Structure formats: C-alpha cells, structure tokens
C-alpha cells in the first residue's frame, strides 16, 4: 500500500512516547495513510537540533520547550507549534534511601502526599548542616524543573538557595542517586520506578499530587512543515487520537508495556513500564500505592493543547528568571499552543472536545462534566497548595509568585 504522507518523528525513550509508538506499531498511522518513521534521540537538545534542520517534521518534546524555542531562549531555535499534547502527568520526585529515612523521621509517609512530604523535607533542611541537598531534573525548560520548584517553593523551600538543582540525563539519575551524587530527582517514567526497584530509592511525591492533570510532553511540530503539510499534520493528529484511545484502555496496558520495552523504543523491561500505566506504583521499601490519574494518555482531554498550560509554563520561566515578562513574550507563549489546529483536525471524528481554549488551572476540585454532550469530563486539576492560575491574569500570577 502506498502511503500518502511520510512523517519523521523524533522521540526520547520515555514512557510518554507511548502515543507515537502505538500510532506506529498498532497501525493507527498507517490507517491514516501515514508512513511514520520514529527516530530515537538521547537528549532534548538533539531533538531540537534535528527539528531545526528539518531532519524531523515533528517530535515528542517537553511541553515548555517549543515555547522556549519560540522565545529564542535556545539555539538553533526552530519555530514550533504544539497542536496536541501527548498525555498528562507521569512524573515523580524520587529521593535516596538516606534522604527518605530523614524525611520519614520528620513526618513523611509513603502516601506521596505533596503537602505532608514537602513539610517533612522542609524540616530535614532545617536540621541539615553543610552542603545543600542536590536534586536532578531532566532539562531547564521542563515540566519536571517547574513542578519540582513549585513543590519546593510552596513547601517553604527556596529552590535556588536551599537546593542545588542540576540537569542530568534521566537514565543516569538512579545511579547518580545510588552513588550519592544527588539526593533526589524529578524525572519521567520509567526512571522513578527504576530508581525504586533497582537502586533502593523512595518516591517522595508524584506530579499528579503536586498538580493533578498537569501538562507534560507534547507533539512539537516544525511550524514551517505544519504550514506546508496541513493534511499530513491533520492525519497525524487523527492517528495519535486513535493511539491515545488504545493507550488509555486498561486492557491494552500489558501489550503497550511490551511494545515500549522493545529495544527500538524505551528498551527496558515491561515490569518497569507497567506501574506508570496502571498507576499502581512501587514507592520504596516494598510498599505500593495506587495513584489516580498518575499518567493520563486519553481521558479528560489529555491530548488537548490548552493555552492555559502554555501560559503556566511561561509564568514559571519568568518566575525562575529564564525570561523577562513582557506582553510580547506572553503572546509568543500563548500562540505556541494551537487548540484551533487540534479542533480542525479532529472535528470530523465527532468526538467531544473542550470548547474553550484555556481554563483556570486548579479550579476543578472534582471530576466535572463539560460541554453539552456530557461525553467529556475534566479534572480534578488542583495544585496541592490550593493555588489557582487564571490565564487571563498572567500579570497577577507572576506578581504574586515573585513576592
């Protein structure tokens, strides 16, 4: 069969490359007449560079990165759009056995509660003498960096002065922890499960506890390619939508874990990949906890590219002094995410989609039906500290956080 579209997508071997992998392996791409080539990369810098020189048309990428590229914070900086998210959540904060013991003595529990365990970490730091604790994150422009900093700051810990935050490749984090080079890390899966099961680490909290239903990886599209190939892009979004339905169905979790375990993809045993899919997580010391909405590939409009997500990432770039806040920069961030492209591509499927392009993040405390069809529910999407982000009041949010 001759395919109408040839698309090359870069990805990093992580659990949340699932939608792209399923689109290829389960035939959802082929069904849209797409010859989808997936190319594995070992750094986000490499993904960005290959997008910039058009070796990739699209890529699995950290949600804040296309915004950083469009703001010119990173070079070479391909102009990018984000017409779809690749799921919600999926990260965790993992700490060394030694730090966990200290946190447990200070009141932390295995229940992954962001507030309690953040307070325990605060007490550990109060008692600590000598070097600050060191935490690894995967990239400066990552959900990991921002959610870790958010958690620390809301727990009364200054992420700049009281913690040393450094960037490490995720596959090295477990070893760095075991060797005492770092005390904790915030990474995606399977690297938290790997740390817990293979390196004696303990989960402190999870992204879903810090900010429920929060954005993570997205489909980054070379803007020039997207403009020149609107049909191919729309076909890809349809394929990824079908892939998300398949990934979101619990009956497929075992098969998805086996697919991702293949050497061409994540290349780690299925046992390390399954916990993130089921939400039944080994937290350390043999204990297991079930986390609702740990990683959400489909439900709750998980693939919708909310402008409020883009703007929240932008506020954190400003908060941590990666970029100056100007009206022009705010607009660049908001325009990077393209719910209009998402809607246009998926309209013909007749599925329930959010009618708004942005929402007040943290406003939903329970699962809430939206839209007339009632087929779509959103939330809860709360921050653990009760914070709210109104995308119409970026100035106010930035001002409040700079205090």
């Amino acid at each position, binding site marked *: 069969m001759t395919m109408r579209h040839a698309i090359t997508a870069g990805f990093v071997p992580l659990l949340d490359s699932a939608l792209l992998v399923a689109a290829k392996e389960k035939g959802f791409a082929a069904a849209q007449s797409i010859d989808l080539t997936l190319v594995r*990369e*070992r*750094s*986000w*810098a*490499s993904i960005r*560079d*290959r997008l*910039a*020189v058009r*070796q990739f048309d699209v890529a699995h990428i950290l949600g804040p990165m296309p915004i950083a590229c469009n703001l010119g914070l*990173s*070079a*070479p900086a391909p102009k990018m759009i984000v017409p779809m998210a690749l799921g919600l959540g999926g990260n965790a904060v993992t700490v060394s056995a030694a730090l966990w013991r200290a946190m447990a003595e200070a009141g932390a529990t295995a229940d992954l509660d962001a507030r309690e365990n953040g307070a325990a970490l605060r007490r550990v730091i109060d008692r600590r003498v000598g070097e600050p604790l060191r935490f690894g994150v*995967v*990239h*400066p422009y990552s959900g990991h960096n921002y959610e870790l900093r958010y958690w620390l700051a809301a727990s009364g810990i200054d992420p700049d002065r009281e913690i040393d935050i*450094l*960037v*490490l*490749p995720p*596959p*090295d984090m477990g070893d760095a922890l075991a060797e005492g*080079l770092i005390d904790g890390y915030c990474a995606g899966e399977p690297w938290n499960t790997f740390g817990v099961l293979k390196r004696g680490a303990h989960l402190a909290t999870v992204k879903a506890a810090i900010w429920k239903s929060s954005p993570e990886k997205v489909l980054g599209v070379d803007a020039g390619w997207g403009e020149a190939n609107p049909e191919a892009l729309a076909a890809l979004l349809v394929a990824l939508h079908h892939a998300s339905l398949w990934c979101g169905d619990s009956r497929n979790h075992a098969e998805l874990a086996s697919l991702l375990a293949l050497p061409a993809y994540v290349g780690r045993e299925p046992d390390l990949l399954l916990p993130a899919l089921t939400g039944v997580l080994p937290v350390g010391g043999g204990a297991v906890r079930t986390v609702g909405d740990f990683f959400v590939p489909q439900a709750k409009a998980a693939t919708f590219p909310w402008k409020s997500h883009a703007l929240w990432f932008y506020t954190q770039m400003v908060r941590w002094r*990666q970029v100056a806040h100007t009206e022009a920069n705010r607009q660049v961030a908001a325009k990077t995410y393209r719910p209009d492209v998402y809607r246009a591509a998926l309209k013909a499927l007749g599925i329930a989609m959010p009618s708004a392009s942005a929402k007040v993040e943290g406003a939903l405390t329970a699962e809430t039906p939206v839209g007339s069809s009632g087929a779509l529910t959103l939330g809860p999407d709360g921050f653990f500290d009760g914070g709210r982000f109104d995308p119409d009041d970026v100035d106010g949010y930035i001002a409040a956080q700079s205090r």
Partner: protein
Amino acid sequence: MQPGALNVLVIDENRIRAAIIEEGLRDAGYAVTVVEEMQGLARRIAELNPDVIVIDLENPNRDMLESIFQLTRAIQRPIAMFVDKSDEASIEAAVEAGVSAYIVDGLKQERVRPILKMAISRFNAFSRLSRELEETRSELENRKVIDRAKGLLMRSRGLSEEAAYALLRRTAMNQNRKIAEIAQSLVTAASLLDPGAPDPGVKT
C-alpha cells in the same frame, strides 16, 4: 590574531574520535582540552574557561551542558548555543556530521568558523573510518563462513577447493544471492543435519 589564542574544549565519550578531533585542532594551532568525564563538568568549564566547546551531537549530556551555560555563576563568560546561528547551512552540516558546538558570546564568526569546519570534517572522517572498519569486519566474517562451506562441500562431495568455490558461486548467481549467504545457509543446514557439527551461530 593567532588561532592559538583560542581555547577549545572537546567533550566526547568516544576516545578515538576525541583524539582525531584533538589532533586536527592542535595541528591548526588551537589550544585543546579533551574531557570524557561528565562529573564535575561545570567546574571544569569554569576552570578551563573555553572559547569554544565541541561535543558530539548524540551525547546524552548535552542537556546538562546547555543548562550549565544558563547558570551564570558556573561560568565566567556567557556561552551562546551553537556556532553561527545565522548560517543555516553550517548548522545543517554540523548536525549531519553529528557534531555540535558552542561559543563564547561575542566571539567573531570568522574566528570560530574554521574550528567548526575542522570538527565537521574530522567527525565525517571518523564516521567513514567506522564504516570501513565495519565493512572489513563483515568481510572477514564472510570469508570465514565461505571457507567452512567450502570445507563441507569438499568433504561431502569430494570436490577440490576450486570446484567447491565454483559451485557456491554458481548457486549464488543462479539464486541472485550473495556467496556468503549461500555459504551461511549451507553451514546452517549442515549443522541441523549433523548435531555433532560445530554450531553455525558460534563464530570461530
């Protein structure tokens, strides 16, 4: 200004490739330091204070390296991403070759471009070398399996070495396959028919 005034840091986990690049840059008169160890990289960069950093594109530590550039307290001078933002062709050539380079902000492009060119050509030379090595290796393995197939034919059909080879070649031509493939099939088949024969999967 003499090129020797520029200080180049090469970060490469592949020692052979690092040595090839180092040699080229040194011959061109640059001061070169090679770093293979990623631990304590921020401190090393602060100590060395390089004008240009060359790193292989596939290095998983590039995100870490770029984050170091953002921490102004870790380095004395700000470092810009990638040489020559304005010149798309040179970025493309670098990505094709698998090399990435960073320069101290404000350094003149004319001074840096020869370094990037050199790195690109040395990376390409290394890739060619690796490819040739790989070809030589598979050539050697092919020869071994053909020798074993010849031996089998000589023993079982009483052929001379020349006749055994001619038979393999004729069969390969008739089936439009490579001699080594025919030889491998024969060795595999022989081992299945005779359990005492050496395992064809074991490379001797």
